[in-house]
C-alpha cells in the first residue's frame, strides 16, 4: 500500500484568487442601495443619533451571529445553499430551497431598480438635465399641465421614466425605453457573472470600491453646500424619547437583517469557495462592521445634500413671498432681503393687513422642509435629482451619483445571482460537461424575459409588492430555521468542533449564547411583530393619479383581492419549502425503511470532508 502523506483532495471547485476578493464580495453583497437610501431615512424618522443604539444592539445580537453562522456553514460544507442543507440533514433541505426561491424572486425585481438607475444615468449626458425643465404643452402657451402642477422632477420620474398608470390593476403598455435599459442591465449582469466567481471576483474590485470613492467626493462637495450643516445637525441630534416606541426597535432589527443580506444563500455560496482552513469568525465580524460603518458614512453626504435642498427650498419660498410683496407695494428692488423679511412682514401686517392677506403668502419654515423625509426610490430619483440640478456642474454630479448607485446595486446582484447559480451547478440534473457560460446565459435570459413584467405601466407598483412581501417575511422565517437547524438538529457541539477546526480556536461564550438562545428568540419576536404590524391594516399603496383631487399628493388605494392573494403567495412560497421538503423526505424515509438492503447515510463532519 502506498504511504503518501495526507494532502487535501483537489475537488475541482473554483476558488477565490485571494482572500481580499472574498471579503470584498461579501462586503459588496451586504452594502447595497439600502445603505444609501433606507438607513439615513430611518435615522431621520427615529430620533437621529438615538437610532444608533437599537441599531448596534441588533447588530450585536442578530446580525453578527447569523452572518458567522452562514459563512461557517458554507466554508465547512463547500456547497451552495441547497446542497449544504441537504448535507446537514435531508429534512432541512427545504431551507436551502427556500433561500434559492427568495434569491430568484429578489434578482428579478432588483435588476429593474438598476434599470431605472441606468435610464437616469444615460439621460445625465444632456444639457440641460431633462428633469430640470417642464415640457411645453401642445399650443406652446404654457407648460405641460401635469408637470406644472407637480414638479419637473416628479414629472420626469412618473411620466417620462415609469409612465405610471393610476392603478395597479391597469397594466398599461410595455415601455420600450425601459426594455432597452433592462436588456442592457441583464447583459451587464451576464458579462460579470458569466463564469461564476472567476468573473465576479474581477468585477467586484471595481463595483465594491468605486461607491466609496464617489461617497467621499459627495461628502466633500456636500459639506461645502449652504445649509449642509442644518441637515447634519437635524440628522444626528439624538431624541432619546423615540426609543420608547417599539416600532423603532423593530425597524432597527429588520434593517440590520436585510442590510446584511442574510438568508439569501449568497453568503453560503461565497464562503463555499473558500479553503476550509479560514478564519470565518474574523471575516463575519469584519463584514458586519464595514457594512454598518458604510451606512453611517453614506448618511453624511445624503443629509448634507438634503439639508442643502431644504435650505434652497426655504430661500425660494422666501424669495417668492418677497417678490409678491415688492410687486404689490411697488417697493424698490432689494429693499426686502431674506434677513429683514420678518421685520418687514410684521410692519406691513400692522399697516396694511388686508393687502397682505390678499397676497396669500405661504409660510416659510425651514424645519418643515427638513421634516420632509423620503426613503427608497423617492430619495434617489426625486429628492436627490432635484438637489443635483441646484449644484454647479450638474451633469458631472448626476453621472457620478448614478454610477455609484449602479455599482452598489450591481455588487448586490452578484450575491443574488451566486445564490441562484451555485446551487444549480451542484444539482445532478445539470450535466457536468455543460459550460458555465451557457447556464449563466440561460439564467439571465429567463430572468430578463420574466422581468419584462416590471417594465409595464404598473411595474413600479409590482416592484413594491415584491419588495414588501417576497423580500421581507420569508427571509426572517428562513433565518430562524437556519439557526434552529444548526443549533438543535446539527447540534451545537458538532458545529463548535467544526468551527474550531476551521478557525483554530473554540467559539467563545458570546457565540454560544447568541446562536442557541438570543438570535432565535430575537428572530421570533421580530417576525411576530412584523406580521402583526402588517395585519393591522389592509395592505395599501400610494398611486400617482393626475386626475386625483389632491394631486400632486399621491392617492391612497387598497390592493384588490387578487393582488393581496399574490402578496400572500410571494411571502408563503419560500416559507412553505421548509416543511414541504421535510414532509417529502419523511415519506421517502418511510418507504425506504421497508427496504432491508437500505444503509443509512453516514453522519457528516467538516473535518471528514478533507481526510
Amino acid at each position, binding site marked *: 500500500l502506498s504511504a503518501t502523506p495526507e494532502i487535501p483532495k483537489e475537488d475541482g471547485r473554483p476558488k477565490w484568487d485571494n482572500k481580499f476578493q472574498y471579503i470584498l464580495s461579501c462586503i459588496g453583497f451586504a452594502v447595497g442601495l439600502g445603505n444609501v437610501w433606507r438607513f439615513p431615512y430611518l435615522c431621520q424618522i427615529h430620533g437621529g443619533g438615538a437610532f444608533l443604539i437599537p441599531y448596534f444592539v441588533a447588530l450585536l445580537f442578530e446580525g453578527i451571529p447569523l452572518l458567522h453562522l452562514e459563512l461557517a456553514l458554507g466554508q465547512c460544507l463547500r456547497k451552495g445553499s441547497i446542497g449544504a442543507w441537504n448535507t446537514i440533514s435531508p429534512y432541512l433541505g427545504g431551507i436551502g430551497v427556500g433561500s434559492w426561491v427568495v434569491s430568484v424572486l429578489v434578482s428579478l425585481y432588483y435588476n429593474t431598480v438598476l434599470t431605472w438607475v441606468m435610464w437616469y444615468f444615460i439621460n445625465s449626458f444632456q444639457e440641460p438635465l431633462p428633469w430640470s425643465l417642464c415640457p411645453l404643452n401642445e399650443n406652446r402657451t404654457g407648460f405641460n399641465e401635469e408637470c406644472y402642477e407637480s414638479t419637473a422632477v416628479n414629472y420626469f420620474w412618473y411620466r417620462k421614466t415609469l409612465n405610471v398608470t393610476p392603478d395597479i390593476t391597469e397594466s398599461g403598455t410595455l415601455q420600450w425605453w425601459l426594455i432597452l435599459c433592462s436588456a442592457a442591465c441583464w447583459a451587464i449582469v451576464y458579462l460579470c457573472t*458569466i463564469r461564476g466567481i472567476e468573473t465576479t471576483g474581477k468585477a467586484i474590485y471595481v463595483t465594491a470600491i468605486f461607491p466609496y470613492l464617489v461617497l467621499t467626493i459627495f461628502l466633500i462637495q456636500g459639506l461645502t453646500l449652504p445649509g449642509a450643516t442644518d441637515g447634519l445637525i437635524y440628522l444626528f441630534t439624538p431624541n432619546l424619547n423615540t426609543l420608547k416606541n417599539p416600532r423603532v426597535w423593530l425597524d432597527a432589527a429588520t434593517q440590520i437583517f436585510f442590510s446584511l443580506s442574510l438568508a439569501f444563500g449568497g453568503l453560503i455560496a461565497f464562503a463555499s469557495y473558500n479553503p476550509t482552513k479560514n478564519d470565518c469568525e474574523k471575516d463575519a465580524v469584519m463584514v458586519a462592521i464595514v457594512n454598518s460603518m458604510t451606512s453611517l458614512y453614506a448618511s453624511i453626504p445624503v443629509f448634507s445634500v438634503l439639508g442643502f435642498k431644504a435650505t434652497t427650498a426655504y430661500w425660494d419660498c422666501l424669495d417668492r413671498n418677497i417678490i409678491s410683496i415688492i410687486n404689490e407695494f411697488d417697493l424698490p428692488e432689494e429693499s426686502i432681503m431674506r434677513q429683514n423679511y420678518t421685520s418687514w412682514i410684521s410692519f406691513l401686517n400692522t399697516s396694511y393687513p388686508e393687502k397682505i392677506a390678499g397676497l396669500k403668502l405661504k409660510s416659510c419654515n425651514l424645519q418643515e422642509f427638513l421634516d420632509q423625509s423620503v426613503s427608497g426610490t423617492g430619495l434617489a430619483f426625486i429628492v436627490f435629482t432635484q438637489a443635483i440640478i441646484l449644484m454647479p456642474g450638474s451633469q458631472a454630479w448626476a453621472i457620478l451619483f448614478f454610477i455609484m448607485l449602479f455599482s452598489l446595486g450591481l455588487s448586490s446582484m452578484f450575491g443574488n445571482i451566486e445564490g441562484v447559480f451555485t446551487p444549480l451547478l451542484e444539482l445532478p440534473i445539470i450535466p457536468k460537461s455543460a459550460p458555465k457560460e451557457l447556464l449563466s446565459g440561460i439564467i439571465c435570459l429567463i430572468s430578463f424575459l420574466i422581468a419584462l413584467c416590471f417594465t409595464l405601466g404598473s411595474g413600479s407598483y409590482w416592484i413594491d409588492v415584491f419588495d414588501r412581501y417576497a423580500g421581507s417575511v420569508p427571509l426572517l422565517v428562513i433565518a430562524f430555521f437556519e439557526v434552529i437547524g444548526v443549533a438543535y438538529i446539527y447540534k451545537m457541539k458538532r458545529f463548535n468542533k467544526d468551527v474550531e477546526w476551521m478557525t483554530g480556536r473554540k467559539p467563545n461564550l458570546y457565540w454560544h449564547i447568541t446562536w442557541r438562545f438570543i438570535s432565535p428568540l430575537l428572530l421570533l419576536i421580530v417576525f411576530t411583530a412584523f406580521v402583526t404590524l402588517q395585519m393591522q391594516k389592509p395592505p395599501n399603496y400610494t398611486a400617482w393619479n393626475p386626475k386625483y383631487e389632491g394631486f400632486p399628493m399621491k392617492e391612497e388605494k387598497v390592493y384588490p383581492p387578487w393582488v393581496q392573494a399574490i402578496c400572500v403567495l410571494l411571502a408563503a412560497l419560500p416559507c412553505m419549502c421548509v416543511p414541504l421538503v421535510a414532509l417529502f423526505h419523511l415519506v421517502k424515509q418511510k418507504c425506504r425503511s421497508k427496504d432491508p438492503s437500505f444503509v443509512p447515510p453516514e453522519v457528516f463532519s467538516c473535518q471528514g470532508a478533507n481526510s
Partner: protein
Amino acid sequence: MLRALLLTLSVVAIAHAELCKPDAQNAFKVRISIKTALGDNAYAWDANEEYLFKAMVAFAMRRYSSKSTTQISNVLLCNVTDRVSFWFVVTDSSKNVTTVPGSEVEAAIRMNRNRINNAFLLSDKTLQFLKITSTLSPPVEPPTPAWLIVFGVVLCLIVAGIVFLIVSGIQKHKKKNKKSTERENLEEKVEVTLENGIPCEALDLKAGHINGVFAADDERFTSL
C-alpha cells in the same frame, strides 16, 4: 398770446393725464427688474431710459402697422414708481385725444419683444408687460435623442465584453480538451503492466535478471 399757450398746454396736460392713468383703457403696466437681471452692472432708471422706452414702443408700432405716423410724443408714460413700474398708452396722432386700441399695441409689442428686451439688456421675465403673455420657445431637440447615443455606446461595450469572454472561454475549453487527449495518448503508451512490482518492460530490456535465491542453489550440485 402767453395765456393761449398756457391754456393749450394745460389742456394737453389734462388730456394726457386722462389718457394715461392706472387701469385706463388701452393702458398697459410695465414692470422692470434691472437689479435682478444685471446685478452689479445695473443702470439707474432715469428720464433717458424712459425716452428710450418711448422710442422702442414707437418703433414697435411703426414696424407693426408699417405706417410711419407714430411719434415718440405719442407714447405717454405715467405713475413711475421706485419698483420700477409704470403705465403707458399710445395715442393716435391722426385722431385727437384717443388711444390706439390695446390689441394693436399688444400685437406690436409681441412682434418686437426681442428687440425691446435687448435694447434694455433685459429678458421676458425682467421686463414684464403685465397683460401681454409671451410665447415660450420650445427647447432645442437634437434629431436623435441624446440618451440613445449614450445607450448605444454602453451596449456596444457590453456586447464586446461578452463576446470576448465567450470566445476566450471556448478557446480555453478547446485547449483543455487538446491537452487532455494528448495526455490520454501518452498514458496509453506509458501504461505498463506490472508483475510483482517490476515492470515487464524492464524484464524485456534487460537480458534477464539474476535471481539471487537460485544463485546459491548452484553450489548444491557438484561440478562435473
